């Protein structure tokens, strides 16, 4: 049984996993930094996004919309819609973490996919809390270092398109999407969303197709009859 293991051994295992996740997301942040600068955001804006937003899919979507010619507001709306899942993670984490006051204000910033996955997979609340903070700190550090590295590297490139950097965002989104497609329903939703976006695209301002897709998903979720 896991809980019979010495605490120190469990903790060092958690730290090892947290660092592994941090390094992987640091690499992912390098591509964010590159894509963001290519989309036309400044070095400071790119770094500010990673420090202040600190939720990968939303950041990628925001710069993806801007890079595709959409307004920053359409990008902001898309980023917020992608951030809604973090609210559900927060619900699951609040009882595990038991944080109040200033610690809750800090903890909230770390509520993302990876920290949630690391925290809920533990045998005790103490281990959950440790895993949450260890993963959060490792990720926050390496995510921001990676962003800075990626942004600095592409900052000086005169023609990003020649390097195929305009093809990087769809590849990044595909890598983010793939793990969510393991059943027929999400597959159908994904296909439908792609088709709807392309059908409305010629007729509405850039960025708006995403909001139309999000509205349709919300209506689908609200009115669909539940079948079990």
């Amino acid at each position: 049984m896991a809980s019979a293991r010495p605490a120190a051994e469990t903790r060092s295992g958690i730290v090892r996993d947290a660092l592994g996740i941090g390094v992987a997301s640091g690499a992912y942040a390098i591509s964010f930094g590159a894509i963001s600068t290519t989309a036309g955001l400044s070095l400071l804006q790119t770094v500010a996004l990673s420090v202040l937003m600190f939720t990968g899919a939303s950041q990628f979507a925001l710069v993806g919309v801007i890079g595709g010619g959409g307004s920053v507001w359409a990008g902001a709306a898309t980023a917020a819609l992608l951030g809604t899942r973090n609210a559900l993670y927060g619900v699951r984490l609040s009882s595990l973490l038991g944080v109040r006051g200033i610690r809750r204000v800090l903890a909230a910033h770390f509520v993302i996919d990876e920290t949630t996955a690391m925290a809920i997979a533990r045998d005790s609340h103490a281990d959950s809390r440790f895993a949450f903070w260890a993963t959060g700190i490792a990720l926050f550090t390496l995510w921001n270092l990676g962003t800075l590295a990626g942004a600095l590297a592409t900052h000086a490139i005169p023609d990003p398109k020649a390097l195929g950097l305009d093809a990087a965002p769809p590849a990044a989104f595909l890598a983010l999407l793939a793990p969510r497609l393991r059943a027929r329903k999400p597959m159908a939703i994904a296909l439908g969303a792609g088709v709807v976006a392309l059908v409305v695209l010629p007729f509405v301002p850039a960025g708006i197709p995403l909001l139309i897709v999000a509205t349709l998903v919300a209506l689908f979720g609200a009115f669909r009859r539940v079948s079990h």
Partner: protein
Amino acid sequence: MVWSGLLVACAACYGLKLAGISLPQAWLDDPRIQRTVPLLPVALLSALIAILTFSTGHRLVLDVRVAALAVAGVAVLLRAPFLVVVASGAATAALLRLV
């Protein structure tokens, strides 16, 4: 203009995180919310892929980006690391533009 949009987006994303960890659990336990929220990333990521691959401005176009996406897809199927998937897409587009 750009800065205000970025900061509003950051505030919204943080607000959602803080709301989840602070609001009474029952508020977000509504089955419609639980059903819908996980579908949003799937739909939005897929729509973004479609738009960024098959369009330029308001026109639908087919160009090297389609091949780039296909190669990235193969990399995903082969379980390549994130950076390799992104680099394979970019490299495909760059190489095909040289031809």
